[in-house]
């Protein structure tokens, strides 16, 4: 009976809300996915935060601080959505620090030059937006609402990245080389952000039936490539794939698939920065413990005094 109501609601494109009955597997899938998404926002603050103190102009510095700040905010919106499913943010953070929940593997790559900030905005945020726009219609209401807010705020992220690369691409030979190098390094990991091919993906089928996921990995990846190739031309930068060519028959660009063995290796912890990202997060969490305790203790004292 409850299952039937749930199925009908999802089939009718109605939203599932926190206090509705839902299958346990639906709940746990959502918790895993939303938490992973939230963790990605939080870990993603590090590679970009790496350049805040060296941003080459005050305008760029302000934009970058605002962007990294948005990521903290987006992490909060998402943890907030996850908490409607009956988990506590603290538990999720513990799972992240213990390595038992993942974050997007893209953030295990280092930001070596300023141009990486451009490439992250253009390619990584571009891929993220491609993934996220359909999530605005996800069957779970709180997640969909968080995504609406995030997508609205994120539109500036991709543009500022494009603008950084455009400026570098039209600057000195040194700047242009820096931009091309960054695109060369971020292109393949960006394609990997859509996950393994559908044929090899363990989660796609059920998530699609539940309307958590609206499109397959391959379709979204293709959408991203189709959107990005003309933008690369406008930037005057090359995508590092000789296999990119317009296929009139398909109405899409052909492209070379990334090496999914690399994706697996990075997810399993063998990326360039996996250990460091978690170590930094753990340090911030542990260094902040005394502050959180102090605030809680103060609140308890105040409440006690008011009650007395």
């Amino acid at each position, binding site marked *: 009976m409850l299952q039937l109501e749930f199925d009908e609601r999802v089939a009718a494109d109605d939203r599932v809300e926190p206090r509705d009955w839902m299958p346990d597997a639906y709940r746990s899938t959502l918790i895993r996915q939303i938490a992973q998404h939230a963790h990605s926002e*939080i870990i993603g*603050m*590090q590679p970009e*935060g790496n350049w*805040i*103190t*060296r*941003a*080459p*102009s*005050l*305008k*760029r*510095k*302000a934009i970058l*601080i*605002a962007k*990294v*700040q948005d990521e*903290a*905010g987006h*992490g*909060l919106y998402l*943890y907030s959505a996850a908490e409607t499913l009956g988990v506590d943010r603290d538990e999720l953070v513990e799972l992240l620090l213990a390595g038992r929940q993942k974050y997007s593997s893209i953030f295990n790559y280092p930001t070596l030059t*300023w141009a990486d900030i451009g490439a992250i905005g253009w390619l990584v945020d571009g891929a993220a937006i491609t993934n996220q726009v359909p999530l605005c219609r996800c069957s779970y209401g709180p997640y969909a609402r968080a995504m609406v807010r995030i997508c609205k705020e994120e539109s500036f992220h991709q543009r500022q990245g494009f603008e*950084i690369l455009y*400026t570098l691409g039209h*600057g*000195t030979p*040194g*700047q242009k080389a820096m931009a091309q190098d960054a695109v060369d390094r971020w292109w393949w990991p960006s394609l990997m952000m859509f996950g393994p091919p559908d044929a090899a993906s363990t989660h796609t089928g059920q998530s699609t039936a539940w309307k958590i996921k609206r499109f397959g990995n391959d379709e979204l990846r293709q959408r991203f490539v189709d959107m990005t190739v003309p933008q690369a031309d406008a930037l005057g930068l090359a995508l590092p794939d000789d296999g990119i060519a317009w296929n009139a028959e398909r109405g899409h660009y052909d492209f070379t698939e990334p090496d999914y063995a690399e994706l697996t290796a990075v997810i399993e912890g063998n990326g360039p920065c996996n250990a460091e990202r978690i170590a*930094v997060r753990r*340090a*911030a969490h542990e*260094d*902040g*413990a*005394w*502050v*959180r*305790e*102090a*605030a*809680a*203790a*103060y609140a308890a*004292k105040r409440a006690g005094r008011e009650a007395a």
Partner: protein
Amino acid sequence: MRSPFFATPPATTMPDAAAYALRLGDDALVLSHRLAEWVAHAPELEEDVALANISLDLLGQARALLAYAGAVEGAGRDEDALAYLRDDRAFTNMQLVELPRGDFGLTIARQLLFSTYQRMLYARLAASSDETLAGIAAKAEKEVAYHVDHATQWTLRLGEGTAGSHARMRAGLVAVWPYADELFEADPLTDRLAAEGVGVDPSCLRGEWDAAVDGVLREATLERPEVRPAAGGGRRGLHTEHLGHLLAEMQSLHRAHPGVTW
């Protein structure tokens, strides 16, 4: 002869209003940088967002003040030329803002001292006969009112929270207090500008500041530390060793590619 650390300051080569805007801009720029260092490392996510907000407010003030300093100077230097192409001896921020960020206790202690001062300064500067300075100050005062509130709320919580947080907050106050006197040091430049109604005599802020800060400390069960004042000299380009490292990091990329657009 005295060493420059104990000598009277040399005359500035910039027009008074430019040198003055530069001082205030340097304060905001350097403190903004220190606060931005917290982003992704704060005690809680909500605090990452809060500290980033304060950092952005200060950076906005710095940009307006530096741009104005460059315009008044009339030598073709824009905000970036002033931020990225001056050496540390040409920076005129107070030493308080350049101290390393330390732990959250030190950061909050500095925020309490500085934002309380800055709010009082801007409140008066909003009445400046220099319309640009008055406009910048009027906008900034609203922002800084929030910074004061943030610092106050956290001083109360750290001071009264746990024995450990009380000790850390006290250690933060001990670390920053030696640099407090510099906030209120008048010199020939501020004397001239105050007389003209353009600038603020910082020494006249002391009484109000003492009362405000003491009030917060008292409520937070903290006390003013008994410490010897630091040598000071930030306004004369005499800094702690920390500023050089901050600028080396901040300016490295900009200076590696001279004259380009970012």
